[in-house]
């Protein structure tokens, strides 16, 4: 790819203000995963060309072909389809080096940039323009990257967590026949994710936005031979496209009303719009629609649980740590616009809070370990949206970051569990579901590292101090309480005629309940998985063992980050939290200070459009409440749930009673959508085809015109009777007509 650096005047200006800081190989950060993709892609094609055919020929005598495999859960394939013996071909060895390698390099570059940027006070983003992408008339879209505090932070998360997950994948996936393809997709995903976070304009972001959706689609359906997997991928893509539609409309509105699509210009001009006016509200609502799709919020969350059909590291990377948080990133990125649209912001917060609670309730009664984590993710994303909706942008980003750590850790941990169970079941040819928690139990003895790391991550997500989730979640709930006290700018806004303060009070309550439920279902997950007797089966138990280093190292690193991740943003003004100030990294409220240039636009909007905000009073009771619900949830789970009484899926029904049934069936939302959206659309489509296209249009053309002309011709031809008398008569009639007309004329 051409990396001609065409520095625009703006870039030069930006750099002049940036002082000495010069981004280090910014383009290369993005490019590295793409290179990885290219190499792995070639390997994948070559592998497919040679290996796939052999696999089909060998599968016939390989004991269990598809019929058998179908009974296994999705994950079975990683084991079942592996080459039983033989030398590992180079196409399978190369990706192990290339894929994590490019990620580590990219991460290193990101870190280098971080250090460079920490050295200077960067007020304006740095925009690097590579080429002019879509220059048409007034529309000038550049292929440009923008480096600022927010995008760098996202880059760090994406490359850092991404590198760990790539490493984990080496252990997890290397036996899969599609391994090089998998790694290629994964690299491609990171590429698009980096485009998403580093893009300097909405269209460039949209490239990444749809690109990650594509990779998600490909990876969810990675084991495409099963219809369920392919269906899940398709569902994810189509649901995401609904969100993308919103994004697209938002871009159209932005361009038509502001005349630009680059962030710098848009946010400069945004204050020209009417504060809280219909235009900016519409823009924000459509942007939010995009975010809802990508980040799996109500009502478009339905694809995420299904997305668990993909390999577990994918769930960790895409559906927990990075892609699904893109919506949050979008809102923070467009914070200036959202600040202009208080009602839309409140709606964002409200949707987030409702989603947080709603998803948490479903998480209570899932047996599939990954499904629990999936709903947990939706729920946590709800927290983030609640935060950014309330204007607590940094809190949202903070939670995004810590969530990336602990949720990735949880997913990878669950992956390690599943992997271990698979191998065990594979060894004994068992057909049990390796993801059903009822088949687990007592695993802490067999998978000690996994258990320890997951336990830490659980504490983090439950919000137990001093783990990472405590700080970030606390900040969100705290912000809601503060807002309910009227001390946030948005408290002055209103939505549906109800004041912002009231809404935020409700949000605080919703989030608190959600936090409590979070702790409970996570405790349930840990109890059923790692405690109590082992329900895997006698024979299988012999084969249970801890995972290899490529998988455990990422777990450990993520566990460490889940532990200390909160210290990046310890606010000394908040009671109780300030107890941890001595441990804080980078000074007081480091993340706040770091991100301040990014959200300054929003603050300026508030400053000029809302009444002066009274001094913020940080009370200690909300913090105590937050700690309490977290601990209470875990304790309650420990007390109420009896892992030793749990049986295998055959012995224990999935649910008892109506409430459990509803929860287990996810409030029947999928069924509802099926009934009110999917089926009508299909029915309408069929009707269009048969009634309109075939019936009406072709009916008129072929039937009326075509056959009509034929019939007309036939009936006209009937005068040709062959009888001279008739002919003579016709001629006479003609004569009379002609004479009549000529004389009359």
């Amino acid at each position: 790819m051409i990396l001609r650096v065409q520095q625009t005047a703006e870039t030069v200006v930006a750099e002049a203000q940036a002082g000495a800081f010069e981004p280090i190989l910014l383009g290369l950060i993005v490019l590295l995963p793409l290179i990885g993709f290219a190499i792995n892609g070639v390997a994948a094609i070559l592998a497919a060309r040679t290996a796939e055919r052999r696999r089909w020929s060998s599968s016939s005598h390989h004991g269990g072909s598809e019929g058998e495999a179908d009974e296994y859960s999705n994950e079975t394939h990683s084991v079942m389809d592996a080459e039983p013996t033989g030398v590992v071909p180079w196409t399978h060895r190369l990706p192990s080096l290339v894929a994590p390698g490019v990620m580590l390099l990219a991460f290193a570059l990101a870190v280098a940039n971080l250090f460079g940027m920490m050295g200077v006070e960067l007020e304006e983003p740095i925009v690097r323009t590579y080429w002019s992408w879509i220059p048409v008339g007034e529309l000038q879209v550049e292929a440009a990257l923008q480096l600022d505090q927010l995008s760098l932070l996202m880059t760090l998360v994406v490359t850092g967590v991404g590198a760990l997950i790539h490493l984990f994948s080496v252990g997890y996936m290397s036996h899969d026949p599609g391994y090089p393809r998998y790694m290629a997709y994964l690299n491609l995903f990171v590429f698009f994710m980096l485009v998403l976070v580093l893009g300097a304009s909405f269209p460039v972001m949209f490239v990444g936005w749809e690109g990650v959706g594509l990779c998600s689609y490909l990876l969810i359906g990675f084991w495409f031979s099963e219809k369920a997997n392919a269906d899940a991928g398709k569902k994810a893509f189509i649901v995401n496209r609904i969100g993308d539609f919103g994004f697209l409309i938002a871009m159209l509105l932005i361009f038509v009303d502001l005349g630009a699509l680059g962030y710098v210009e848009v946010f400069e001009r945004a204050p020209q719009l009417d504060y809280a006016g219909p235009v900016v509200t519409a823009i924000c609502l459509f942007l939010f629609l995009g975010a809802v799709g990508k980040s799996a919020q109500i009502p478009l969350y339905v694809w995420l649980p299904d997305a668990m059909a993909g390999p577990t590291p994918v769930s960790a990377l895409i559906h927990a740590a990075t892609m699904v948080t893109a919506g949050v990133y979008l809102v923070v990125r467009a914070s200036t616009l959202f600040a202009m649209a208080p009602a839309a912001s409140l709606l964002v917060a409200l949707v987030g809070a409702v989603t947080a609670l709603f998803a948490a309730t479903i998480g209570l009664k899932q047996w599939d370990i990954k499904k629990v984590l999936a709903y947990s993710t939706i729920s946590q994303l709800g927290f983030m949206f609640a935060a950014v909706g309330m204007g607590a942008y940094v809190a949202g980003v903070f939670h995004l970051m810590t969530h990336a750590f602990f949720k990735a850790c949880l997913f990878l941990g669950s992956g390690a569990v599943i992997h271990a169970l698979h191998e065990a079941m594979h060894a004994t040819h068992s057909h049990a579901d390796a993801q059903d928690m009822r088949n687990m139990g007592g695993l802490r003895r067999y998978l000690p590292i996994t258990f320890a790391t997951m336990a830490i991550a659980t504490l983090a997500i439950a919000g137990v101090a001093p783990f990472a989730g405590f700080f970030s979640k606390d900040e969100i709930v705290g912000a809601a309480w503060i807002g309910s006290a009227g001390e946030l700018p948005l408290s002055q806004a209103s939505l549906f005629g109800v004041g912002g303060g009231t809404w935020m009070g409700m949000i605080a309550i919703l989030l608190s309940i959600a936090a409590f439920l979070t702790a409970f279902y996570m405790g349930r997950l840990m109890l059923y998985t790692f405690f109590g007797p082992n329900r895997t089966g006698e024979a299988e138990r012999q084969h249970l063992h801890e995972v290899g280093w490529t998988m455990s190292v990422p777990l450990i690193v993520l566990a460490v980050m889940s532990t200390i991740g909160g210290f990046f943003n310890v606010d000394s003004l908040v009671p109780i939290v300030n107890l941890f100030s001595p441990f804080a990294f980078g000074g007081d409220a480091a993340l706040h200070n770091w991100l301040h240039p990014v959200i300054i636009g929003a603050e300026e909007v508030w400053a000029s459009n809302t009444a002066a905000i009274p001094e913020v009073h940080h009370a200690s009771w909300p913090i105590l409440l937050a700690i309490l619900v977290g601990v209470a949830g875990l304790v309650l789970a420990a007390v109420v749930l009896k892992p030793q009484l749990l049986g295998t899926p055959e012995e224990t029904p999935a649910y008892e009673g109506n409430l459990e049934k509803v929860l287990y069936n996810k409030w029947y939302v999928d069924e509802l959508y099926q009934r009110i959206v999917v089926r009508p659309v299909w029915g309408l489509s069929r009707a269009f085809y048969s009634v309109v296209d075939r019936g009406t249009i072709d009916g008129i053309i072929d039937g009326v015109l075509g056959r009509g002309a034929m019939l007309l011709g036939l009936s006209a031809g009937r005068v040709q009777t062959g009888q001279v008398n008739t002919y003579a008569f016709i001629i006479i009639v003609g004569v009379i007509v002609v004479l009549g007309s000529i004389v009359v004329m």
Partner: protein
Amino acid sequence: MDFYRSHWVLTFLVFAPLIGAVVALVLPAARARWVALWTGVIELLVATPLFWTFEPVGAAMQNEVALPWIPNWGIYYRLGLDGISLFMVLLTALLLPLMVLGSWTYIKDRERVFYAMLLALTTGVMGVFVALDMFLFYVFWEMMLIPMYFLIGVWGGKDRIYAAVKFFLYTAAGSLLMLVGILYLFSRYQALTGESSFAYGDFLSLPLTSGEQAWLFAAFAIAFAIKVPVFPLHTWLPAAHVQAPTAGSVILAGVLLKMGTYGFLRFALPLFPGAASADTTVLLFMVLGLIGIIYTAMVAAVQPNAKRLVAYTSVAHLGFAVLGIFALNVQGIQGALILMIAHGVSTPMLFFLLGMLYERTHSYEIEDFGGLAASIPIFALMLVFAALASIGLPGTGGFVSEFLVLIGTFRVQPWIAFIAASGVIFAAFYMLPMVQRTVFNSLTRPANRAIPDLCGREIALLVPLVAIILWLGIYPRPILERMEPSVGRLIERVETSRFVSTPGEAVVASSASSSDEGIRE
């Protein structure tokens, strides 16, 4: 080089395929495909430098020529190239060798005639895009019907005759009305100046009353709308596509449909700017385009036949083009032009792939497939790529074009753009299930396990398409900047007359403005 400054390059591009056709007919059958391939390659090699020799500055027609043909009627051999036709010419030249490669083993009988028809068809299409004499244009426009008719009717599927006749009658019916329109312009010009002329440039300066404009625009628009095809006139297309052999589908989707949109841009809009920019016209075509986008997308989704499905998607895509054209602003029209190119490579790619699949399985029915990614992974890769390009994923030309069209439309009709944007959802709604049921899911048909993956020839013909799709999506600027002057002039022409025209009054359509100097040699 002089060759590229004179009309000879265009003349060569138009008639080289015809010569190739004659040669193919004369030589033994086994040679026919080689003749066609070489003709195609030469055509492409000759056409490619046009991209650079074309001067994107100034709005003038380039490589112009006017040689007398039937001088007593003012009929001249007039050719010319501008930013609008340049890419259509390049696209045609690109697709020709690829079509030959795509038919390499597909066509097993009557090769000589087949390749001759294919080449003759290319002549017709080329001619349409470079003709600047209305008579010449019409001749090329109609002439291309015959080879296409034979391609469908002789080498097509089961219902080929129905499809061929439907194709022919639809198109011919529309274009005959256009012929009356052309003649009307001719006689008006003669009445006005006393001279006979069919020159496009001369007609541009004709003053027409708004009533005349309306009728003439209708005559032209129907011809072009059928070709595009615009919503209620589209049913010939699925029929033709399903029955046509691969090369037929490819050229049909690749360039033939573009003749309709090209016709709007070259003739219907500039000749009758008042009628074309009238509010009712714009609204009518926008609504029809919109129906095309949503309705045909939905219809596409329920097709059991993969080729028919793709055929319907063409209607949906060109609905965007219609939208862009009638947005009558620079984003809309440039978007439509990019869409014409993007669709001109992505949809042919899909048809190529389906043709390859047909050669292996002798079926276009989606339910006969499934899980092909396991048995023919490279095919699957290509299909997924083509499908994604077709639904306009960013990074492919489809996105750039649809984005531009939507922006252009949004500026004039926000609500229509709003609904049209939902086309992105419907695109996924029709394309992904097809992809899934074709290459994903489990491989249930034993016969599909033993089929060979794409061979070198097939990959070689797909790779250029992939490259162009990505190029269009990533760096369309060289293309956009070559189009911009021509598009700018078109818009200026339409804009100026939009405000001048009043009912019943003759409108001298901006003939005084300097912008016309380019066309009127």
